[in-house]
């Protein structure tokens, strides 16, 4: 395996001829200027050293290409362009030494060859779209499938998983283990260790077994440092193979367990998004100015970004010693950024809430144990994005609580120790079926075990 070892030095060696030869070209053209004529003496040795390393790169490159599986088409191009570069550099060296007439043209050709060969090499290691990917607008959002039952299992469900987690090594540009997973015929064919799947038998399918090995195992796929399949993705692959690994079958014709049905349902609702996407508003906001921040910190308000690097913040008033209208006046300056506000157990009053009416982004508001009344609740209308509201241990009554129905985005409300009525709650539930209402007041029954002790059985004496 010495050849493989030597071959893997290719990525190190290739950069030497690139740098040295390009530098030689630079010296050559610069020396044309009267002022830098002296550097022309350096062109020949630079070309000599560059040629030497370009030959070395060709040798190591060849050894690498026979040991690891890469896209044959690109390897072919890269190999011959590399050899052409090496030959051209030697020709340049000789031409320069012999002071030929068209050395300039040769050096321009050499430069072009270096750039093209280098680009090809980069595509081999990083993937063909590596350079251009940041420019293209393709988003990685999970596709929403309107009617999952009519979807083709392979095309709509399985292929995206393989594309995301497998293609980078088993696709068009690289074929580790001589395996490609990007087209049905390659999947059926398998790799150098044989078939990757046995239809109807996920348990004896190499692809499933490899994925299920512990990550510490060398055979585990995808390799430890690469993005891993989620549990749902493994379940989907398993289900696909179990139902025959067909490339044309539609979802409705397959047998689905309850678990698979649940995973599939997420496709049609598109709620397979991560928590981060649902919690942070997509709108970009500017950072809070340092003046406002220091004013707030002087008031004792704890301001912390909801997540590192975000301009959206959470404010906690627990450290404020004297809560006044001024505190809220400063708070209203961060209305664009304020996502969560915790004012529980503070002296916050109804009128303070109306001072915050510009906080349109507010998603979570905690007012537990405050003297907030129905009047304050009425001013919550302004918080059109409010999702979580805690008003436990406040003076809120049924009337104020029913006004919460206006908050269209409200998902959870906590009403423990407020003067709610059961009828009012039922009404609210009817108006907002998706709202989770917790009225608390949980009681634990007193059990015998709460008040007694287990005793050792009496020891019988004869």
């Amino acid at each position, binding site marked *: 395996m010495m050849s493989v070892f030597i071959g893997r030095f290719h990525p190190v060696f290739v950069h030497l001829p690139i740098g040295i030869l390009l530098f030689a070209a630079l010296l050559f053209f610069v020396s044309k200027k009267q002022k830098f004529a002296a550097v022309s003496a350096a062109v020949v040795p630079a070309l000599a050293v560059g040629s030497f390393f370009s030959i070395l790169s060709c040798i190591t490159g060849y050894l690498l290409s026979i040991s690891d599986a890469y896209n044959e088409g690109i390897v072919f191009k890269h190999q011959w362009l590399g050899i052409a570069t090496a030959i051209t550099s030697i020709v340049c060296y000789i031409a320069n030494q012999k002071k030929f007439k068209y050395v300039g043209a040769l050096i321009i050709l050499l430069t072009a060859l270096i750039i093209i060969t280098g680009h090809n090499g980069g595509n081999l290691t990083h993937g063909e779209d590596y350079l251009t990917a940041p420019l293209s607008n393709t988003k990685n959002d999970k596709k929403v499938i309107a009617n999952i039952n009519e979807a083709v299992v392979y095309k709509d469900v399985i292929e995206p998983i393989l594309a995301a987690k497998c293609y980078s090594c088993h696709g068009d540009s690289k074929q580790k283990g001589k395996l490609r997973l990007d087209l049905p015929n390659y999947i059926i064919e398998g790799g150098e260790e044989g078939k990757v799947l046995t239809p109807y038998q996920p348990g004896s399918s190499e692809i499933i077994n490899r994925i299920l090995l512990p990550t510490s195992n060398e055979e585990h796929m995808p390799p430890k440092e690469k993005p891993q399949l989620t549990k749902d993705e493994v379940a989907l692959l398993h289900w696909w193979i179990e139902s025959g690994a067909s490339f044309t079958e539609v979802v409705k014709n397959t047998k689905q367990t309850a678990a698979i049905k649940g995973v599939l349902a997420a496709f049609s609702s598109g709620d397979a998004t991560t928590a981060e996407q649902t919690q942070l508003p997509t709108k970009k906001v500017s950072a809070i100015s340092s003046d406002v921040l220091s004013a707030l910190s002087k008031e004792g308000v704890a301001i912390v970004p909801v997540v590192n690097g975000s301009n959206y913040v959470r404010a*906690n008033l627990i450290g404020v010693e004297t809560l006044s209208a001024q505190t809220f006046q400063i708070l209203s300056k961060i209305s664009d950024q304020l996502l969560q506000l915790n004012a529980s157990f503070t002296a916050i009053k109804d009128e303070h809430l109306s001072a915050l009416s510009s906080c349109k982004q507010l998603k979570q508001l*905690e007012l537990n144990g405050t003297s907030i009344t129905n009047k304050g609740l009425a001013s919550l209308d302004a918080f059109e994005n409010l999702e979580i509201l805690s008003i436990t241990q406040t003076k809120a009554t049924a009337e104020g609580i029913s006004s919460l129905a206006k908050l269209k985005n409200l998902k959870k409300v906590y009403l423990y120790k407020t003067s709610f009525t059961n009828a009012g709650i039922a009404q609210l539930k009817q108006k907002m079926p998706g709202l989770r209402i917790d009225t608390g007041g949980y009681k*634990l029954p007193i059990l015998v075990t709460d008040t007694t002790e287990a005793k050792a059985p009496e020891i019988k004496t004869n």
Partner: protein
Amino acid sequence: MTQKELHNQRLVKEAQKAVMQQHTRRHFIKESAMGFGALALGSLLGGCNTSSSANLFDATNPLAPKAPPFLGKAKSVIYLHMAGAPSQLEMFSYKPELAKLDGLDCPPSLLNGKKFAFIRGVPKMLGPQASFKQYGESGIWLSENLPHLSTVIDDVAVLQAVTTDQFNHAPAQLLMHTGTPRLGRPSMGSWVTYGLGSENKNLPGFVVLTSGGNNPDAGKSVWGSGFLPSVYQGVQCRSEGDPVLFIKDPAGMDRDIRKASIDAINKVNEESYTEYQDPETLSRISQYELAYKMQISVPGVMDISTEPDYIHEMYGTRPGESCFANNVLLARKLVEKGVRFVQLFDWGWDTHGDSAGNAVDIGLKNKCRKIDRPITALLQDLKQRGLLDETLVVWGSEFGRTPMQENREGKTMPFKGRDHHGEAFSMWMAGGGIKGGTTYGETDEIGYNIVNGKVETFDIQATILNQLGFDHEKFTYESQGRNFRLTDLSGKVIHDIIA
């Protein structure tokens, strides 16, 4: 140039010269060598570890609230540790097959190559000493020892196959809380407080409450700050008497004199800092200030007697005493006030069978009775206050117990007991973005070995950090020339129990 300008120019030159004289050849060589060395090393190591996090320690305000690297579900953690290792076989792990083997000799296949803390020779198998039933919509099996918890089991995710490689209490506790069985690493609570700070500037970010009559075997290291600045260590509070020892000013010392003395001490410390630049000095200054604020804030928060009667009834608390229930209620109060990490230790779960109090059919039942009600009340109370979604509650211990009856020194024990067993035991998590009503992991028919869903101590730590918004592999602190993490070189987030 006027006389004055000339004079100023000369002053500036003199100052620059003084600075340069300070900067000796030795400094220069040291800095440049370090600089180049670090540059080269950094780029070399860059390939191995691109994931280290910047130092978050701000000596002037070490507990300032900080944002997590990604959106976590939980804002705080209440960690309930039953020191001594409760028997999973009488609480969470339903093993009907074990009952059939009760009293039979343990087959050699279970003993070959194993080492036990106390079992010698061939022990007898010991059937479950409690009856089990399925509860809730999830149908999770629970023993009769947890009648209250069974009513909220749909909020709980039970880990049935937790494992540890330590079989003595102290190292196993250290492994669970600091990521190593040896002394010297920061505890989980310290890491979390270091990473997130505290939203309440008047209270410590990490509070420790102990009950059961003893501190855990691993001692205070189990809530120590290790190589993190000492301001992040757990502050142990008491539920009986003064919540923090010496929190009251002594007789004859009023608040103003106290303030004046702390100001004077801090002034001296500040001078010492300008001279020696040791960040621990700043840490000490802020600790003095925190202590002064705590003198006012702590007695209020730690006083459970002001809670209404229905809350006392719910938790089964006994104000004035030192007991687990009181600590659980305190934990809720502290989390409500913005404390990040509340660590409870309850001692007395080491049921070897050497006494009635340590018997799995007597003492263990009584220990269960002391925790079942308060823990259930905690989950319910957090829920009704809207805090359960943001508070991760973890219940567990350092290891579990054997399906064999302990036969210390080969003799029959006076009571039914079980030996230490690290291979497989149960823990649970609830709230803080955990998927309730789930069980994860499976052990064999007698609860001896893991069949699937193995969870290592590092996985527990990784999951807790994940719920708070940290990637355990990237949350590091540099000490003694290398980056350390809580999970050392292991740890996988248990995605199956995350909602």
